[in-house]
């Protein structure tokens, strides 16, 4: 039997960067590696010497897809440092922001990243012509999830309003 080497450089339609390297000999996998080739950013160092109130804004930039989660985790860290307990209303609103992000990220995952594999197409683009209703519904749901984040956090990618202790502004509409 022949040896096979499979080398997938930069796996498509995943969040983040990865390569898959596999070598097969006599029908058996000799080596199977998932290489994470994400470019390192060094946030731990970038944060040094910055004022505490900037921390949530800086660490949100770790990832655009889960920016709200990074924001919320860092708010908790800053509040812990000050022994500050946010109000029940703040906690509830933060949870709403978090759920909005879950929704947005899961919709992105299912419809944009995974679905094309099941239909054996490159991306969601061809699905827009073969299954227009489903794609349009997915886009509507994604828009709703984004709006949910925006109502609480100002926007989904890198929220603006959540700050240690609460929010700069509450949406009263």
């Amino acid at each position: 039997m022949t040896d096979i080497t499979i080398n997938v450089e930069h796996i498509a339609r995943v969040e983040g960067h990865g390569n898959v390297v596999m070598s097969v000999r006599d029908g058996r996998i000799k080596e199977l590696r998932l290489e994470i080739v994400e470019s390192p950013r060094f946030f731990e160092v970038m944060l040094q010497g910055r004022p505490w109130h900037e921390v949530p804004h800086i660490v949100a930039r770790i990832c655009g897809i889960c920016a709200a989660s990074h924001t919320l985790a860092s708010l908790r860290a800053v509040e812990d440092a000050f022994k500050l307990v946010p109000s029940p209303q703040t906690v509830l609103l933060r949870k709403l922001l978090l759920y909005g992000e879950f929704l947005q990220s899961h919709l992105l995952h299912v419809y944009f990243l995974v679905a094309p594999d099941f239909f054996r197409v490159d991306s969601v683009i061809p699905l827009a012509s073969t299954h227009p209703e489903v794609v349009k519904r997915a886009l509507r749901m994604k828009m709703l999830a984004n709006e949910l984040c925006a109502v609480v956090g100002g926007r989904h990618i890198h929220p603006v309003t959540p700050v240690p202790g609460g929010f700069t502004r509450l949406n009263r509409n």
Partner: protein
Amino acid sequence: MKPKVAFFSFTSCEGCQLTVLECEDILLDMLGQIEIVRFREASSLKRDDYEIAFIEGSASRPDDVTRMRKIRERANLVVAIGACAVSGGVNFMKNFHYLQRTREHVYGAQADWFPTTQVQPVEAVIKVDHSVYGCPMTKDEFLETVKSLLVGRTPRIPQYPVCVECKMAENVCLFHRGQTCLGPVIRAGCQAFCPGLGAGCDGCRGLAPDHNLASLTNVLGEYGMKPEEVRRKLRLFNGYIEVQP
């Protein structure tokens, strides 16, 4: 013939690519006008016959410079999308720390596993034809740029500061509430997004042309900020201005 378009991602949070996918209401219309031949986050297609390259992120790994130069050779137009690409964005803060110490601080004995260089915005490596500002870039400005390139005109990007949009939105100036804001020197185009939400502008869209930093430093001084604090505040997104040629 639809123009062939590719998206590339370097050191970034991928939030600007995501912003493209978040143009939900107009996404399908836009896709009808262009042919996407490469967009790793959204497609497994990988072709190199693109005319327009959108680049997200900064160069910060040894082979990033080579990759960017390849893109420049192949593309007719290069568009930098988002602060990371335009000016280094938050990534640039890393350049104010010693590189080797930075690597060891985060990765300890494995520091060599993660090669990294000083952060460079795209324009420090290759010629950039257009920039879409912001962290993340705004959908409107991205769409304005795509539409402009499609019809062959220069994208209309504001040349005045955030304060102009803030006044037009009839916001109460944050300085009146004892807060601080970089709006007077930062390029508009976000509709004074942060001041509108009660948060001071952090400068993610970069300096406006004809800004007056000296004057803003004086004003911030009256609000208790020392000049070095103003510089530190600017470094959040605009450290590049300290070394820009």
